[in-house]
C-alpha cells in the first residue's frame, strides 16, 4: 500500500513538472511568434469601439487629462488639491504622486489608490484621452510620436502593463471599466492586428 502511495506522489510530481515545462515552452513561443496583421477595417473599427469605451472610462481617462492636473472620481472632476503633472508626470515639489499614492491600494473608501509606478504621462508626451473623439484617439494611439514611441509589438504588450492592469484594481468604491481586462485585451489586440483602423468620427 505504501509503495502505491509513493508511486502516486512521484507520478503527480512528474505530471506537474511536465505541465510547467509545457507552459514555459508555450510562453517562450508566444514571445517569439511574429505578429500577423490581417487587415479588416470593419472588424478593426468594431474592436476599437470597445477599446474606446474602456479608455474613456474614469479608471483610464483620469490619468490622461487634457490639462496638467489629473482627474479624480467616477465623475472625473479635477483632482482635489490640484497636484500638477511635472516634467516626468510624477508631480512637483511637495506634491509628488507617491507622497499619497502608495505602492498598493490604501484600504477603505476615499483613500488613495496605489501602484508602485503611479504617474501621469510625462510633460513632453501627454497622451491625452480626455475630450478625444474615437477617431482622434485611435490615430493618436498608433502614432509613435504621440504614444510613447510604441511600435505594434509594444502596443500589444502594453495591454498587460502594470498601470493598465491597475485600472481593474483601483480600491474600494471605484467603478470598474465597462468590461473585464480579458475582454479589453482581446478587443485591443483585435483592433491592432486587423489594421488599427480609425473610426470615421
Amino acid at each position, binding site marked *: 500500500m505504501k509503495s502505491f502511495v509513493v508511486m502516486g506522489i512521484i507520478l503527480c510530481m512528474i505530471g506537474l513538472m511536465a505541465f510547467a515545462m509545457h507552459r514555459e515552452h508555450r510562453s517562450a513561443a508566444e514571445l517569439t511568434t511574429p505578429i500577423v496583421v490581417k487587415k479588416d477595417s470593419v472588424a478593426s473599427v468594431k474592436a476599437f469601439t470597445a477599446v474606446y469605451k474602456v479608455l474613456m472610462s474614469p479608471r483610464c481617462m483620469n490619468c490622461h487629462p487634457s490639462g496638467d492636473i489629473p482627474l479624480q472620481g467616477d465623475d472625473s472632476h479635477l483632482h*482635489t488639491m*490640484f497636484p500638477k503633472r511635472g516634467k516626468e508626470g510624477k508631480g512637483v*515639489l511637495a*506634491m509628488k504622486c507617491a*507622497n499619497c499614492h502608495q505602492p498598493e491600494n490604501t484600504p*477603505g473608501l*476615499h*483613500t488613495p489608490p496605489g501602484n508602485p509606478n503611479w504617474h501621469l504621462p510625462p510633460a513632453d508626451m501627454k497622451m491625452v484621452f480626455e475630450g478625444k473623439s474615437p477617431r482622434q484617439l485611435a490615430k493618436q494611439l498608433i502614432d509613435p510620436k504621440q504614444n510613447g514611441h510604441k511600435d505594434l509589438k509594444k502596443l500589444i504588450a502594453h495591454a498587460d502593463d502594470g498601470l493598465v492592469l491597475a485600472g481593474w484594481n483601483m480600491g474600494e468604491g471605484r467603478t470598474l471599466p465597462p468590461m473585464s481586462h480579458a475582454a479589453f485585451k482581446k478587443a485591443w489586440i483585435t483592433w491592432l492586428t486587423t489594421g488599427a483602423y480609425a473610426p470615421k468620427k
Partner: protein
Amino acid sequence: MINLNVNHKVYQVDADPNMPLLWVIRDLIGLTGTKYGCGVAQCGACVVHLNGEAVRSCVTKVSRAEGQQVTTIEGLSAHNDHPLQVAWNEENVPQCGYCHSGQIMSAAVLLREKADPTDQDIDDAMAGNLCRCGTYLRIRKAIHLAAELQKKEGGSV
C-alpha cells in the same frame, strides 16, 4: 521588529508592517509633533519626510519606511532654527497651530527644490496642506521670508 531611522536615530519597533507610519512615530516612538488630521491623505497635517519627500504618514505603511530615512518636524533642525521655523515665528503664522508641522515639512521640500519660489510655486507645493484657521496668507509670507533667510545663510535647506 522593524528597524527605522527617524531623525538620524535608529529605532527598533514592534509594529505590524501595515501600521501607518504616523502611529509608529507618535505612539511607539513618542514624537508627537506630527499630527493626525484626516487619516486619508487629504489634509497634510501628518506630512513627514521619507528620503526627503513630503509623504503623508497617515497612509504610509511603516514597512515602506523600513531602512529609509524619516525626518519629522522634531528633526528638521537641531535647534528649531530652520529658516522656515524662524520665519514662522517671525510672522506669527499659526493660529491654533495644529496643521503647521505638516505645513512646514511641505514647505521645506519646496525650498529645497525652489530656493526662490514664486507665489505660483507656493500654491503648487502647498495646495495639499489645509489650514482650518485660514492662515494661508501668513504661510505664503513666511515662505518668502524663509527663502530670503536661506539666501542670507548662503545655502539650501
